[in-house]
Every structure is written in structure tokens, then in C-alpha cells.
């Protein structure tokens, strides 16, 4: 019986080894090498260069803004969703956009935000001249948040659904007003979902590079842009890998800092 279970594990392990572990090893090796052999110079270059540090900060800042915006929209949405009738149907509507290719959605926004686009024609009705919307920071954050939204709503929705409605009733029976019930009961109990959502949104947002080009017009520069340049334009693979390794470390830090508190919360379950 045990042997058969191991056989089922083989494809999974092979997949992980080939497509997760091998690439990580490869870029780590590249990061510590130049044409002469082993070196740490790539890292010292990274950490002494103002441009790279600024780029790292930029990546963090934009990822933070995107995550904050999605959270702000997602939590109320997830809450309302969990109190609605045809939940499966509404859920489907939220998942639906993820079936459409990311590029296609980005191109759609180019049409919407353009000078002759939907938003500007609408503004034109009120006599507001064509505004610059495309290629602004706001447009970039908006589109990124739109794309990440389902990945935030779903875990929060699941977490809220897991909260026994009786617990909320008990809170109000015991004299808590709505805000207090939310703050003291619902929020702590659904926090694991929020943390999962933050992880699912923040980490990919750190290295978004296609949107920075298509919607941000390369006026928003993140580490993803630099990686693309080092690999594709200058073919300086060791520096590109170095940025990649730094990015992986940043992601690990984010993972640890969110998941350690999440696992503590997980035990907080109220049964009545």
C-alpha cells in the first residue's frame, strides 16, 4: 500500500525537481558567477547601486499599494457575497475574468484609458477635455488591482463563510454593536483568509513587468523590468539572476512574516 502511494508521488516530485528546484539552483549558480568564476561582485553591485535599491523600494511600494487597494475592495465584497442568496452564481461572476488571458485584459484597458477611449469620451460629455489616464501610476495600480482582485476575494470569502453565523449573533446578543462585532469577532476569525489573500496578491505584484510596460508605459519601473532588460537586452545573465535571487529572498521574507502569524490565528476557531 505504501509503495503504491509513492508511485503516485513520482510525477509530482519530478515536476517540483525539474521546474521549481532546478531553476532556483540554476539562477543561484548564475548569480554567484561572472566570466571568471565564483564572485560576490554581483551582489555588492546590487546593494551599492542607488538605482537598484530605488527599484527595490519601488517594487515594494507599488506591490503594497496594489495589495492595499485590492484588500479595500475585496473585504466588503467578500462579506456581502457571503450574505447573499445565489452565492455560487455571484462567485462565478468574480472568477469569470480569470478565464480571460491577462494580455487581452491589459489591451482592453489600453482601449478604455486611451485618448479616444471610453473614459475620456465619458468625461467629454461634461466638457472635461481628454485627460492623460493611460501611462500614469494610477492607471497602473488600478489595472493591477483589477487583475489581482479574484485572488484576494476568494480566500477571504472562504474564511468568512467558515465563521459560524451564530457567533455573530451571540456577539450582538451580548450587546456589541455592528462595528464592535466586526472588530472583535469577524475580523480576527477571518484574518487567515486575509493573510492568504495578501500573499497571493503581494508576491506576484512585486515583479509585475508586463503591466508596467503596457499600462505604465515603462514609467513605472520595478525589479521585473530590470530582470527583463538584463536577460533579454544586455544578456548579462549573472546580474539578472542576482536580481532574481534578491527577489526570491524578499518573497520568502514576506511569506514568513505573513504565514507565521497566520498559523497562530488558525487555531482561533469558535465553536458554539
Amino acid at each position: 500500500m505504501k509503495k503504491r502511494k509513492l508511485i503516485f508521488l513520482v510525477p509530482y516530485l519530478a515536476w517540483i525537481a525539474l521546474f521549481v528546484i532546478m531553476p532556483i539552483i540554476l539562477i543561484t549558480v548564475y548569480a554567484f558567477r561572472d566570466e571568471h568564476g565564483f564572485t560576490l561582485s554581483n551582489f555588492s553591485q546590487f546593494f551599492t547601486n542607488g538605482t537598484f535599491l530605488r527599484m527595490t523600494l519601488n517594487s515594494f511600494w507599488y506591490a503594497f499599494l496594489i495589495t492595499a487597494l485590492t484588500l479595500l475592495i475585496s473585504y466588503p465584497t467578500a462579506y456581502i457575497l457571503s450574505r447573499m442568496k445565489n452565492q455560487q452564481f455571484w462567485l462565478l461572476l468574480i472568477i469569470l475574468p480569470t478565464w480571460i488571458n491577462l494580455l487581452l485584459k491589459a489591451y482592453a484597458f489600453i482601449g478604455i484609458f486611451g485618448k479616444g477611449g471610453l473614459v475620456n469620451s465619458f468625461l467629454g460629455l461634461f466638457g472635461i477635455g481628454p485627460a492623460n489616464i493611460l501611462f500614469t501610476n494610477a492607471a497602473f495600480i488600478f489595472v493591477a488591482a483589477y487583475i489581482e482582485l479574484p485572488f484576494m476575494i476568494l480566500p477571504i470569502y472562504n474564511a468568512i463563510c467558515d465563521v459560524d453565523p451564530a457567533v455573530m449573533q451571540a456577539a450582538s446578543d451580548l450587546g456589541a454593536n455592528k462595528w464592535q462585532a466586526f472588530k472583535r469577532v469577524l475580523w480576527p476569525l477571518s484574518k487567515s483568509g486575509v493573510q492568504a489573500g495578501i500573499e497571493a496578491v503581494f508576491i506576484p505584484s512585486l515583479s509585475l513587468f508586463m503591466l508596467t510596460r503596457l499600462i505604465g508605459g515603462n514609467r513605472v519601473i520595478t525589479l521585473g523590468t530590470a530582470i527583463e532588460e538584463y536577460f533579454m537586452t544586455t544578456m548579462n545573465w549573472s546580474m539578472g539572476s542576482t536580481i532574481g535571487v534578491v527577489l526570491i529572498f524578499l518573497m520568502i521574507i514576506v511569506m514568513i512574516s505573513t504565514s507565521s502569524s497566520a498559523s497562530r490565528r488558525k487555531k482561533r476557531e469558535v465553536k458554539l
Partner: protein
Amino acid sequence: MKKLVIAICSILVVCLGLGLAAQKLEGNSSSSGNKNLIIYNWGDYIDPKLIKKFEKQTGYHVIYETFDSNEAMYTKIKQGGTGYDIAVPSDYMISKMRKANLLEKINTKKIPNFKYIGSQFLGKSFDPKNEYSIPYFWGTLGIVYNDKYVKQGSIKHWDDLWKKNYRHNILLVDSARDIMGLSLASMGASMNTKDSLKLKMAKTKLDGLGPNVKAIISDELKMYMIQNEAAIGVTWSGEARTMLDSNSHLHYVVPPEGSNLWFDNIVIPKTAKNKKAAYAFINFMLEPHNAAQNAEYIGYATPNIKAQALLPKEIRDDKQFYPSQQAMKNLQVYQDLGPKKVQEYNDLFLEFKMYGR
């Protein structure tokens, strides 16, 4: 569960069937023996009718594959496992490929139609003796502007881009050599300079352009200019030709103080399996009528003098796309500066993208 298995099986069967059918169709058109010619070219960079004509005339079967950047092409050919007989890299990439020993020598004596190529397009720095490459198309870097937003004739020089009234209205092509190059040219410096001080100055000057820049993009630039999204775009002549054809408000200017002159060239990679067919193809493409037909389809400038004469008058006499000998004196071909300097250009450009706004 049973339904799922049936569904998956039927999909697999359909895929298998289609695959077999495709193979059979391919096999039919290319009968036995080495009658295949594999061309590796930029997307939409040849008149498809010419491929048909070539196949009919010579009996070779053409397999046409495309790439979207010199670097991608270089990596693919370098890694091997490909059998490309013909490739079309740009100038600086040719010296790079030559140094990496990826190119086959071309004997121009075996190409009778080679004589039609103008002497001013031969012996350029990337291939001084034309041993490895045959010019395919050439062009310049310049400014496209929209006369809806910009008074006609008010843009003549690179420095005009810095004017305050174009705030947030300029689209730049996402290429370090070209944008750093335009700044260098505007200061009267060489676009191939290796002088770090001059490069720094050029970058500082570019920072002043930052507020005017709306976006730094690549292929989409064409679409935006056609849709009147921005007043000014900096791009290559071939792209400009397409824009001008779709929007009559657009004009193309090559600043006289200096700009880039680029070449795309036919080469035979070391991986070639059918050199005979490659030679036949090169000769076929250099035949003046074919070259003219191709130039009319693509819109880029042909180095084939005889073909130029066959082009319609309004194309031939367009000074912006076929500049006079005098104007061409100030155009500079990019040299391969080596990885260190290329990195320096790109790093400065990245810095400009980050801070200059």
C-alpha cells in the same frame, strides 16, 4: 468519471488525428531529398507572394519562421538544434555573430544580382568586406509628429523635443542605444561613443526630456501614433512608413545633425543545411523586380539601386525615407561596443526611465 475519461480520450484522438494529417500535408509538399529552405526572419518582413514565386521558380519548399528581437534570434541560433539556412539580423548583431563564429562566409561571386546593390551600402563597419552579409533593407531613426498637435515644420532637430509645450506628449521607442544615441547626437557627439563622461552628460540631458515623455514602449508605438494618442514619437523609418500610410496627419523627420543608419542583412548561419538553396534565395531576392516588389510591400528602403529606380515616383523621391547622399553623411551605423559598454548604455537608460519624469 467514465464520462471524463471518454472526453479526455476523444480529445487525445482528435489531436493525434490532426497531427498526423498536418504531417501528411507537409510531407506532400516537400518530397524527398533536401528541397527545404528554412528562413528565420522578422515577423511580416517579406512579401509572402515572393515566397510563393520563389517556390514555383526553383522547386524549393520554404519554411518561414520568425523572431521579434535580434537577441532572441542570437540565443536560438547559438544554442543550436536549428537548421536555419537564412537569417536576417541587424548590423551590430552581425559583428557579434561573426565574433561568436556563427556565420558562414558568403561568396558574392556566386550571386550574380549582387551587383545591383549600391556601393554606399557596402563595406560598413559591421562587415567591412561584405564576406558574411548581404544588405536587405536599411533605414534611419527619426521623429514622427502629428500635425494636429504640432505645427508643420516646427520640428527639425533633436533639440526640438525638449521644448516645454510638448509636455507629456512624446512616445519613445524602448531601446537604449537609440534614445541615448539621440541625446548624444543632439550634443554633437558620436552615437558610438565609448567616453563615459559624454554618456553621463547625454543621460543628464535626457533627464530634462523626462517630463515630456508620455511612455517608453516598443511595437505599440505604431498603434498609438496612428490613433492620435500622442503628438510626437521617436522611432525607425520603417515603422514610420507604416504609420504615415495609415494616418495622413503624420510626418517623418530625420534630424540633419545626425542620426542612426541601420541595416538588416541576409546572412547564412553556420547551422545551414541547404546552402545551395540559400544562395538561390539571396539571388532571387536581389533581382530588381523582386526587390522592388518587396520594398513596396514592406515600406522600408531597399539598398538595391536598380530596384529603387523601379519604385513609384512618390516613394523614390521621398527625401525622408530615401535621403540624399549629402544627408546620409551625418548618419551613423551602430558598432558593437562590447558587453561592458552596452551594459553602460543600458544602465544609464534604465536610470533615465526611473528618475526622469
